[in-house]
């Protein structure tokens, strides 16, 4: 038997993170409640170190290991670094919040790390089973995290919904993958693409499988009509966990779409098929997400619907079917993660013991309570609405450009009309903060690290808006080298 030693170095970040997570899991048992800060520091160190390893090991070429099951390419490096940083920032934002709510425990940190690991595996998967493995590792950790406040009925309900619908989606995805396996005889992304290109695959079965795969993708992104879980989970989960669900997994989901649709099923005849499906998903997400968000009084729920509409925009970039479009979509995903971090971070900032600042009215008069954070939220909201000079504008411009270049003129017009609808509810947040008198006069005194990070986060939106070139170039370059 011919056994080839796999190149472990390519998977070094994942291996390191796994070891670190396991170590923290054990170490936390011996750390008393009062010194939980140690676990926190270790967790942050593990995430930062992982990011550094990725940065150090990253190259310009595409390499495979573990018999072609695992791939390392520039796209995966960029996305993994973004995921690690996202989770690190999320942990920093949620520390005070978690502490007063009794979820500041070892599980919180370890589950965050395992979900990060799941995302990284997803991003680097070159095989349907590995993809699935990563997806489940991420999802199971997140399900558990939603249910962390054991005594909260809302959280438990959200966790159940998330779990049941997530399992359903995983089932669909697996079914689709099995169809593709039936049609091509392989589960390896590269091999599937080759077999389809050689004309060995049976088209009818392939398209049948594709439908299920797209449905699974739709669920993971939270695109209409597979979005039902999003508002409930966003609202029901503790805000710290919502922050996690709303940001980093979107980056992993982007990689997931790229591996499945572009790399495995990127043959010309199939692209035409999934483009049509994505057009419907994108249009429905933009319409429903933006219109329903208007009716929300709960900020978390509003942001959930806003996520749905943002995923519609992300899909616009992917369905253009061009390298430029994928780069634009990747840029969008990263920008979205930054905006999501900031806006959920603001909710965390305003929350305190026994008070969840999750209603829109809780932001009333923020400008009088604290002009600086009101300004940060203003930037984030205008960025979400896509108003220049914030980075949200460029993200939208680039995906719209890609979609228009692919000939979807009417779709682009529809997208801008819905983004006008979207502007209304983002403006409402600004209106509450700036035009209304405060209902709550509690002083806002965040810790120094949160203060610094949130300020950087808010300013990033405008700095990247004035100079989006570098990040965009990174995305375009990564996609170019990886495809």
């Amino acid at each position, binding site marked *: 038997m011919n056994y080839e030693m796999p190149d472990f170095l390519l998977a070094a970040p994942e291996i390191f993170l796994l070891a670190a997570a396991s170590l923290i899991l054990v170490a936390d048992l011996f750390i008393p409640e009062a010194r939980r800060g140690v676990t926190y520091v270790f967790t942050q160190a593990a995430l930062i170190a992982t990011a550094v390893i990725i940065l150090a090991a990253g190259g310009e070429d595409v390499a495979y290991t573990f018999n072609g099951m695992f791939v390392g390419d520039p796209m995966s490096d960029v996305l993994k670094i973004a995921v690690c940083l996202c989770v690190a920032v999320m942990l920093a934002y949620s520390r005070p919040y978690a502490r007063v709510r009794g979820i500041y425990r070892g599980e919180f940190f370890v589950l965050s790390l395992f979900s990060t690991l799941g995302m990284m595996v997803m991003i680097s998967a070159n095989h349907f089973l590995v993809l699935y493995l990563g997806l489940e590792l991420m999802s199971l950790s997140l399900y558990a995290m939603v249910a962390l406040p054991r005594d909260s009925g809302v959280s438990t309900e959200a966790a159940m919904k998330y779990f049941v619908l997530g399992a359903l989606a995983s089932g669909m995805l697996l079914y689709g993958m099995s169809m593709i396996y039936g049609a091509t005889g392989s589960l390896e992304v590269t091999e599937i693409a080759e077999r389809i290109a050689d004309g060995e695959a049976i088209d009818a079965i392939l398209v049948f499988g594709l439908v299920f795969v797209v449905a699974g993708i739709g669920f993971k992104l939270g695109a209409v009509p597979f979005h039902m879980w999003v508002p409930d989970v966003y609202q029901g989960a503790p805000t710290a966990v919502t922050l996690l669900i709303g940001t980093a997994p979107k980056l992993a989901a982007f990689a997931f779409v790229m591996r499945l649709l572009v790399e495995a099923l990127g043959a010309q005849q199939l692209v035409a098929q999934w483009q049509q499906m994505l057009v419907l998903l994108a249009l429905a997400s933009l319409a429903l997400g933006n219109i329903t968000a208007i009716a929300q009084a709960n900020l978390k729920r509003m942001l959930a619907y806003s996520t749905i509409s943002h995923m519609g925009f992300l899909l616009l970039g992917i369905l253009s079917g061009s390298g430029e479009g994928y780069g634009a979509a990747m840029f969008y995903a990263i920008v979205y993660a930054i905006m999501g971090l900031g806006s959920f971070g603001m909710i965390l900032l305003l929350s305190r013991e026994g008070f969840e600042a999750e209603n829109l009215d809780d932001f009333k008069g923020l400008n009088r309570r604290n002009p600086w954070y009101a300004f940060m939220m203003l930037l984030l909201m*205008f960025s979400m609405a896509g108003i220049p000079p914030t980075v949200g504008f460029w993200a939208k411009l680039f995906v719209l450009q890609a979609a228009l270049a692919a000939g979807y003129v009417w779709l682009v017009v529809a997208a801008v009309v819905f983004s006008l609808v979207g502007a209304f509810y983002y403006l409402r947040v600004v209106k509450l903060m700036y035009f209304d008198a405060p209902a709550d006069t509690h002083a806002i005194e965040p810790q120094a690290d949160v203060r610094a990070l949130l300020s950087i986060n808010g300013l990033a939106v405008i700095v990247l808006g004035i100079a989006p070139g570098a990040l965009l170039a990174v995305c375009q370059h990564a996609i170019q080298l990886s495809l």
Partner: protein
Amino acid sequence: MPGLAPLSTVIWLPIVAGILVLFTGSDRNAATARWIALAGAVAGFLVALPLYAGFDASAHGMQFIELTPWIESYRINYYLGIDGISLLLILMNSFTTVLVVIAGWRVIETRVAQYMAALLILSGMMNGVFCAQDAALFYVFFEATLIPMFIVIGVWGGPNRVYAALKFFLYTLLGSLLTLVALIYLYVASGGSFALAEYYALPLPVGVQVLLFIAFFAAFAVKVPMFPVHTWLPDAHVEAPTGGSVVLAAVMLKLGAYGFIRLSLPILPDASRYLAPVVIALSLIAVVYIGLVALVQADMKKLIAYSSISHMGFVTLGIFIFNATGMEGAVVQMVSHGFVSGALFLCVGVLYDRMHSRLIADYGGVVNRMPVFAAFFMLFAMANSGLPGTSGFVGEFLVVLGTMKVNFWYAAIAATTLLFGAAYTLWMYKRVVFGAVASGQVEALEDIGAREALVLALAGAAVLGMGLYPQAFTSMLHNSVADVLALALKSKI
């Protein structure tokens, strides 16, 4: 600094000053905020002056060009340049900024730093619109102006300010989003460029041109605003604080007309000529119908708002009449309207600060208590009616003259504005200023102080200067207008 990068200075100096003002923070440092803001505004105007001095009126094309790659993978450039049209608008904008900063000196008492900062940043951004030679850059500035204005109306506005601010934002955003689609289309059609100069040379079939024209029209017509998409303006004006109204009327409306001149006409000449009758018809409706609407207003600010729409109808008429006289008239009218309507809003602001009413019915006999103010108000009312010797006359006269060359009846209808304009302005003036002292409140009025007198005197100097020596302005325009018209009269099919 000028000489190195004069246009960047003109754009960024007010913005940086605005950010500095923002850092003074709470109202405890209000005085510091005011002084920094004034310094920033005056400096902003002073750095704009060398542009006038250094501008070569005998040359064609753009001047003071700055070109730096910005987002290279999309070939978006930081590309600035001005012609005579931009030059006058930049000067007017920078001048107006000084006025509104002084006008808001005592009137704005809460969150002073934020107010001053918003006005300064807005001023820089509008200079950016007038300088941009790259469509993406143009759009960024054009759209970004919405944010500070939204805040200004919403925070320091009147009782119904939230409605007015949202209406203002969403109305104008709808138009500009369609423009964005049109710009992306042009980017794709031109093979990946956002440079306006490349769009000027890009051949486009007439069907496409018409669609793009409608998309541009959606943004610019709302901004101007033209009948029938003008309804946001009276709301915004009535609710906005005085400074906001002045900037809105004086400069922001000009962004729309400027967009027609810089984008619609040269990029889509065939569609512009094809659809010109429609635009002219809408302009004439604005001139006559909105003029009549202004006549029946009971609220002074609303009256001036409607008068603005009517006067802007002149601007669009002059632009779409396709001759040099008309277009020069339109540009002069843009600048003049900036000074006149700005000054009228300042006058209403002076009265409002004292009486907290904008209703004409509450006033009467103001001249008995405020003679100096009444004299200034008289000057601006006359200018608004188009009296020869004031700036209001020059623009209107040129537009009517240009229109007359094309069509007698258009000109005849347009000329009715001299009648209606005088009617609604002077009738308002009569009811507010003359007559017997209307109430105890009017009896208690105090005449304007040095600060208010300074603001009105500056505006008055501009109005008279432009009316008595229009050459200083029109001489800058000849070649620029000729350039635009040359592009607008060439077929691209």
